[in-house]
């Protein structure tokens, strides 16, 4: 075994394991040396594992990676022709199929796929080096899954940019008044109610909050949410019912802990239902005057766009 000069992570998994995984990756077929491959693995380990990860953890992590796809993709990023041939054979058609599924409309799908293809090939030059988006693939998920996600991100970003442009054009055509610079004051919410609700929501698990947001804010179906979480649809239905009931109970308990009587707490929640229902509707009408790109009723997040 030649001297490899491997870094600490590779030393920990051992040269034998490295050789084994190098062989499994078939990186040699794509012109990737074992040294280069070790460097790629080191980079991935550094990105996802803590500095004090044990050798066993590192080894388990490395063996869980999609190393064959990782080797293929990194070889493509490095410009190896053979790797590109294999990549195109396996994924070019798939890329366009995925784009068609996401964008629905054929010309938009083609444009989306062409745009990503250019990014994958690396039409951007930085410091004299070709920069390929493939260099960011780390083998955590399948390459096909990664391509789907990247395409979805690009689609969402495009729609967001387009919506900003379209909204100005449409508004000027329709003669709609531009929104006032000063937003309308929100209906005053009892601080205790807001605090009790925040506490109750904070006690929910991230999965429960995700289910609530998907169902109530995004209007996704039970089946869609179940697919994302990889459970049966009936599980989501039961969870939603359980969450809704426990949330109300916790808010009432929180209000009572903040000095309200049970009756006051119930009244506060009832008033909230009437007033905030109206307020929410008017806010939704203001902020979502255009259909979202997925044709679902939703309020866009106020956060920055994804990377």
């Amino acid at each position, binding site marked *: 075994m030649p001297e490899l000069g491997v870094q600490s992570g590779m030393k920990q998994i051992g040269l034998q394991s490295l050789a084994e995984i190098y062989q499994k990756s078939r990186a040699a077929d794509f012109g990737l040396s074992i040294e280069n491959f070790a460097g790629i693995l080191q980079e991935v380990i550094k990105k996802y594992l803590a500095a004090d990860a044990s050798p066993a953890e590192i080894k388990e992590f490395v063996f869980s990676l999609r190393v064959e796809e990782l080797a293929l993709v990194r070889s493509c990023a490095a410009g190896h022709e053979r790797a590109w041939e294999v990549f195109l054979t396996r994924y070019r058609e798939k890329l366009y199929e995925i784009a068609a599924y996401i964008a629905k409309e054929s010309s938009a799908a083609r444009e989306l796929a062409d745009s990503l293809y250019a990014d994958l090939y690396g039409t951007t030059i930085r410091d004299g080096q070709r920069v390929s988006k493939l260099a960011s693939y780390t083998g955590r*998920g399948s390459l096909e*899954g990664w391509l789907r*996600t990247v395409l979805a991100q690009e689609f*969402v970003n495009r729609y967001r940019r387009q919506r900003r442009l379209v909204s100005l054009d449409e508004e000027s055509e329709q003669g709609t008044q531009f929104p006032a610079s000063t937003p309308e004051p929100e209906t005053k919410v009892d601080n205790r109610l807001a605090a009790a609700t925040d506490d109750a929501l904070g006690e929910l698990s991230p999965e429960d909050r995700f289910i609530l947001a998907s169902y109530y804010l995004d209007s996704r179906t039970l089946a869609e949410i179940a697919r994302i979480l990889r*459970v049966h649809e009936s599980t989501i239905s039961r969870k939603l019912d359980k969450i809704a009931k426990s949330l109300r109970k916790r808010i009432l308990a929180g209000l009572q802990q903040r000095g309200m009587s049970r009756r006051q707490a119930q009244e506060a929640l009832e008033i909230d239902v009437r007033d905030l229902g109206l307020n929410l509707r008017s806010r939704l009408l203001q902020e979502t005057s255009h259909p979202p790109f997925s044709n679902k009723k939703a309020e866009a997040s106020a956060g920055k766009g*994804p990377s």
Partner: protein
Amino acid sequence: MAQIPKIGLQRLQKGAELQAHPDAELIAAFIENSTTRRERTDILDHLAQCYECREIVSLALPERMEVEKSRGASRWLSWPVLRWAGAAACVVVVGMAVTLHYESRSRSAQVNTQPVEVATLDGKVAEPPSPGPAIDQPTNKTAEGLNPERNPAPVRKKKATEGANSNSISINQTADIAQGGPEPEAQLQGAETLEARTPPAAAPPVNEGIVPGRAKLAEPTIAMDNIAEAAKRQATALSGSSAIVASRARLVPRWALNSDGSLQRSRDGGSTWEIVSVAPQSRLRALAAIGFDIWVGGSGGALYHSVDAGQHWSQVRPVADGEALTADIIGVEFPDPQHGKISTSSLETWTTDDAGQHWQKQ
């Protein structure tokens, strides 16, 4: 369904300050359920607050995705499992009662002539019945085109008899089970009945004569297997119970391949699915299933075969004229247990006429 208070919706939207968006790698790993528990929690926490990332996840979902078996302790108590356990328990109790009744009347009486298996011991392979409306065609699918809804007619393969001839395989057939109809009469040419040849509950028969090697055996992981095997044994002593015949049909599992190349099996008609560990280091891309007999193929020429619905696997290494199959397998077709065809990404076609003992390359 109970509604949540409107204040809950409003505060849910506001949320805490958004953390950095997860990158495409993590989102893809989340969708494929290959994140750590901590990563999954962090991603869900972000998704609960970020509409755009939720939209990305929704768009990035594969078009066809099977549902894993429900997680958590509740899976053992789920309604389909309880219902199946109840049905199997009833079958066992009724079967024991009838058996005892018959035995008490006459110890030499024949077991009811509605056998569930047909066996030949003459060294010839018994062909499966011609597919009719009640019997689904065997499944021959690539990973992308897989239809997990099929319910192929079960064909059970048993050990070779007095095995000088490696092609001598007695095949026990069950037919017409899908509609719970009557089964064909036994052709008992010296064949043993199922009752006499019932294998142990935990170790279904494996055809050791076919494959050159055996994969690491996997113990059954679900207690239902034992109940199902016990129910099967008792079924032979009963006469004309369509409920039992119908319950046997449900024993034939359904199969699917994930986009990440892992194999999944459903024992309850597709309601729940479980990952079957066959070749952890290979990406499986194609499978063919005929009843309890299943072939899966994947990257690097990985080819595995099971004759007992995935409880035990053997790795098959096709060799023809001194050349081994090493290319990625992208298609597996087995219209019957004996005759099969393998397609590879390098446009090779490998065929077998004897259930994988010998191969020809085209």
